[in-house]
């Protein structure tokens, strides 16, 4: 099949349409973004193209100005052509995929698609991003060919960051079209696909809004407060910190109520229909335009005192007055805090006997019931429901996974005792002797399929490598409490960090060395990657700062030097080992985590990459080869022989600024323009595929007769750089843009990155810069202000400017 998306159209430039256009552009797709001509044009504007495109232009500008940005890089906007539905409608005839994201109004959508049908090119796919209107109503008047190429593609807001893409087949959609869109969404756009049926609000919002509505109503019945509910339904239960009410503030109360009303109106037979009636006080809030973050006040509100201090407030449901927010807690939450893993925390909260714990259990049982009753109504399997909640609502676990964590038999027993109804399909599963919804056997993940009443394999793409599954299949060849080396087949191994935030400690440094020895003996290549959770998650947040702090306080400078030597040695060894080493960074890849990647032979990055050498924030500098390798990425980008006579300042300044300003990329595309990723490094959109793609990269490099890079001296800018930086830093210091300590650190960093006391454009051995890195690092740890920065970061998680 030669189906391709040469050009895609997005009709509707609101926050969703703009987000979809930005995502497509980020994936390299040409986009036509259309919206209506403003109704209120003045006579003199009627022939002015700029005025006629005002709405779409405003939409695109809003997407460009959004924060966090919907665009991976603003340059992507050049792939987006804007137009209006009157003057540019026929351009839709050039598009291979037309995605409708207009206002949620059946008549408007029907009329639009009638016109689209007349102009679409043969075979073009047409989809609707409607979040609630049944597709069958939208396309009932349209022809066979149109209906065969028509389906739902439901993205979640913000499009770039939410992993979920619900695909809703129409009754007549061709299988080829469905397969194509699933593959395109999964691979090109990096989304997690959930197959949904054409039922109101599909999967994520049907389950999600029921959960929110049920909790809100029960809160009032059981006499809990808003902060109490949010404390319970946050991270302790594997849910985002925004829990119930802050999530509603984020989404907007009006939107939430609209979705709830849609479920209520269109699902008359839903056994939990009552949950779709939001409490009265919420309706009153909507009437008073207390809609959440967009109106700067919803369930929560932040006020400023005259001294610019923030006061967080929360609404009182009875009085609708804002009251000062106190952070409540329950014994079960205090207990959960002490537990290391999420399943332990969940058990703490759900099995506790305080008021909060009982409430949490009651709502969990309610969500278990509701989810079980939805199969096969809204989706064929439990996987779709769990994935929708994980990817669309940022839950760590969907309802069935949560149920497994509690223990299905135990939960059912408790439900029976408390007189709660147990769904028939779950009862049947237990009666057949199956006690969990999921199981891992021999490295294969299975789920329980209600329809066939048996376990089936969890579908996974061919490119996917699951480290968790491999671990369950006894594929761990080396392991300690900080890192594991996992056999991911075909001679390729993956070293996985598993410390908190995957911080790099001495054990990881040793593990890398051992892994290199092991792979040299037993394999053909190494991937440095992990699949820790979180959004965006952390490949590695840097070196273990507590360890550095301890050594600095105890003035163990020899030990620091030894640690750095080992870290540098590992990174250098990876680079020059006779097999390819591919790093697979995603999310936060900072400090030592970044250095680990910069030293690798190749990087296969996830599109959401927040990469930077941020050491100066804690008064240090990259001393795991980071100064050396970020500079090499700049100088090595030049053709051979050119560097000798080049004004290296043009390269030195941006490379130096990366370190001295602790620049962090906001996407992999930006990491590339910042110089952290080179031309041969790859960007993968789907994080689920990342380790698999990194493995493929290793195999490709081996297949291409891999030879390690030749070790050669590095061309540096020498003292010419130091003079330039001295002068510039003097200006920054006098302009009060940096502190004395910043200036001290930055000058020394310039000294290291330019090769030390050496003439301009000299060539120096790599070891020279590595030694300068270590010396500077140790000198920095002697500084009181550096120690203060480190301790402040450890204590507060925020940098200290001193």
């Amino acid at each position: 099949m030669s189906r391709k998306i040469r050009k895609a159209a997005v009709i509707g430039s609101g926050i969703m349409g703009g987000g979809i256009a930005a995502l497509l552009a980020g994936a390299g797709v040409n986009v036509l973004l259309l919206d209506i001509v403003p109704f209120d044009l003045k006579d003199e504007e009627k022939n002015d193209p700029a005025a006629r495109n005002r709405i779409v232009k405003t939409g695109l500008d809003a997407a460009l100005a959004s924060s966090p940005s919907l665009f991976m890089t603003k340059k992507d906007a050049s792939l987006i052509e804007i137009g209006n539905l009157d003057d540019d409608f026929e351009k839709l005839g050039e598009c291979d995929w037309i995605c409708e994201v207009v206002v949620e109004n059946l008549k408007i959508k029907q009329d639009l698609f009638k016109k689209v049908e007349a102009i679409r090119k043969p075979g073009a796919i047409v989809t609707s991003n409607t979040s609630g209107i049944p597709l069958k109503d939208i396309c009932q008047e349209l022809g066979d060919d149109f209906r065969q190429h028509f389906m739902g593609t439901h993205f979640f807001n913000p499009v770039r960051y939410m992993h979920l893409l619900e695909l809703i087949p129409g009754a007549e959609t061709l299988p080829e079209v469905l397969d194509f869109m699933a593959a395109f969404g999964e691979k090109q756009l990096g989304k997690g696909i959930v197959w949904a049926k054409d039922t109101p609000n599909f999967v994520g919002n049907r389950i999600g809004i029921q959960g929110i509505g049920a909790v809100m109503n029960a809160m009032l019945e059981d006499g809990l407060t808003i902060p109490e509910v949010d404390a319970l339904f946050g991270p302790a239960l594997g849910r985002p910190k925004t829990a119930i009410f802050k999530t509603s503030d984020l989404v907007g109360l009006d939107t939430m109520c609209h979705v709830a009303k849609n479920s209520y109106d269109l699902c008359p037979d839903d056994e939990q229909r009552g949950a779709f009636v939001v409490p009265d006080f919420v309706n009153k809030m909507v009437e008073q335009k207390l809609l959440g973050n967009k109106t700067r006040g919803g369930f929560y509100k932040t006020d400023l005192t005259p001294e610019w201090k923030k006061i967080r407030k929360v609404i009182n449901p009875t009085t609708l007055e804002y009251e000062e927010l106190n952070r409540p807690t329950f014994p079960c939450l205090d207990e959960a805090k002490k537990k290391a893993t999420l399943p332990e925390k969940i058990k703490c909260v759900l099995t506790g006997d305080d008021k909060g714990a009982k409430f949490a259990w009651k709502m969990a049982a309610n969500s278990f019931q509701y989810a079980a009753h939805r199969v096969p109504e809204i989706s064929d399997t439990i996987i779709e429901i769990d994935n929708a909640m994980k990817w669309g609502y940022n839950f760590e676990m969907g309802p069935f996974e949560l149920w497994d964590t509690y223990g299905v038999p135990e939960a059912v027993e408790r439900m029976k005792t408390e007189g709660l109804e147990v769904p028939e399909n779950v009862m049947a599963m237990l009666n057949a002797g199956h006690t969990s919804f999921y199981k891992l056997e021999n490295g294969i993940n299975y789920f329980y399929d209600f329809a066939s009443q048996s376990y089936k394999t969890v579908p996974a793409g061919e490119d996917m490598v699951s480290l968790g599954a491999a671990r369950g299949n006894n594929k761990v060849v080396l392991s300690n409490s900080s890192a594991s080396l996992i056999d991911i087949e075909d001679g390729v191994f993956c070293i996985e960090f598993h410390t908190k935030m995957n911080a790099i400690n001495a054990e990881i440094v040793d593990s890398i060395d051992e892994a290199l020895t092991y792979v040299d003996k037993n394999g053909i290549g190494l991937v440095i990657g992990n699949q820790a959770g979180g959004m965006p998650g952390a490949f590695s947040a840097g070196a273990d700062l507590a360890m550095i702090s301890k050594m600095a306080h105890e003035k163990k400078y020899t030990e620091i030097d030894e640690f750095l030597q080992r870290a540098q040695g590992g990174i250098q060894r990876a680079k020059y080992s006779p097999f390819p080493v591919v790093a697979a960074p995603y999310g936060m890849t900072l400090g030592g985590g970044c250095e680990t990647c910069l030293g690798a032979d190749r990087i296969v990055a996830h599109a959401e990459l927040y990469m930077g050498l941020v050491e100066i924030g804690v008064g240090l500098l990259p001393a795991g080869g980071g100064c050396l390798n970020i500079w090499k990425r700049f100088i090595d980008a030049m053709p051979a022989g050119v560097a000798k006579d080049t004004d290296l300042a043009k390269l030195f300044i941006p490379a130096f600024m990366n370190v001295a300003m602790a620049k962090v990329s906001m996407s992999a595309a930006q990491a590339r323009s910042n110089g952290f990723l080179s031309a041969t490094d790859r960007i993968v959109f789907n994080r689920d595929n990342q380790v698999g793609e990194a493995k493929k990269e290793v195999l490709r490099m081996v297949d291409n007769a891999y030879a390690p890079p030749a070790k050669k001296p590095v061309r540096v800018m020498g003292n010419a750089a130091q003079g330039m930086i001295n002068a510039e830093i003097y200006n920054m210091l006098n302009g009060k843009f940096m502190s004395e300590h910043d200036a001290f650190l930055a000058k020394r960093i310039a000294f290291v990155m330019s090769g030390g006391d050496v003439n301009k454009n000299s060539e120096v051995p790599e070891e020279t810069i590595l030694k300068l890195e270590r010396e500077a690092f140790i000198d920095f740890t002697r500084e009181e202000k550096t120690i203060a920065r480190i301790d402040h970061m450890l204590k507060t998680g925020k940098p200290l400017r001193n």
Partner: protein
Amino acid sequence: MREAYIVQSVRTPGCKQKRGQFKETRPEELLSFIMKAAVERTDGLKPENIEDVMCGCAFPEGEQGLNIGRIASKMAGFPDSVSGATVNRFCASGLEAIALASARVQMGWSEITMGAGVESMTFVPMGGNVPRPHPEYSATNPEMYISMGITAENVANRYNISREDQDKFASASQAKAAKAAKEGLFTEIVPTPAYKYVIQPDGTYKKDEFIVSLDDGIRESTPEGLGKLRAVFAANGSVTAGNSSQTTDGAAATIIASKAKCDELGLKPIAKLVAYASVGCKSDEMGVGPRYAIPKVLEVAGIKIEDIDIFEINEAFASQALYCIRELGLGESMDKINIHGGAIALGHPLGCTGAKLTATCLANLKEVNGKYGIVSMCIGGGMGAAAIFERL
């Protein structure tokens, strides 16, 4: 000493760096055009009468390198016999060039010379293409390489020049310039050919020539409007893009001839350079330069400040210009200072500025029917320069 008469003094418009009308026109063309125009506008003078060209340029490298004083005179069509040199005293380069050219005639070493100035801040940025402060000296004496904006902040802070006063001064400069432009009072400007590269229907590019007649950086603004701009050089500072000089492209030329040559060729003297002085000061407050240079040149010439009819005091920054004006006791003489606006409105093309302000000063002396005029400016690295011209 012999008399050395100025027989011509003209300039190109000043156009904004990178965004202005000269952004694609190379400095050699700006300079060679104004040199040629100066000769053509002087009745009785032919290019071969000129013996030497002194050209001021603050960053004589790149497009302005390789001795632009010589290259431009060849590009102007002057014969091989006309020699040329590039002179650098940063922002006083153009004035220095005119002083040197005059001195040559006064000494009797030359009969007819040209003092000129050029700077395309578009083509060669301030600081140069390859800034290389000395690694060790910059570590101990970084103030020698200080950014000009910081020096302006230092002047404002040390001598209490308020943000409000700076913005008022800047607004007044813009207003004077706008009025003068509207009334056609910039008689020293010669409409100057420029070019840009324009895409053609077939996708190739072609050089497109056009004429520029006016300074393109004039923006009328209120002190309140300027008050909204953010400080650029220092956090919580007072120096903004609105109360600093504009970075500009331009060129200017002045022709000096001996009395004998004037008589021989029938050249009409319009003015003469009476005296020129330069002084050194602290580099981290270089903006104070005119406050010392002006008294020095007055003393050299034996002229009182009250006798001066026109001041062209370069507005590198409102803070330093205001400081100098106040210290010189000229606060009440604003009707004599920068009467058609200064560099805040008209631009400060570094090495060209001295030559540019000379042309403006002579035109303004004529306009007010005055006798003595002063051109003065502060200079990076910590200096000031001033020259007194007498209209004939």
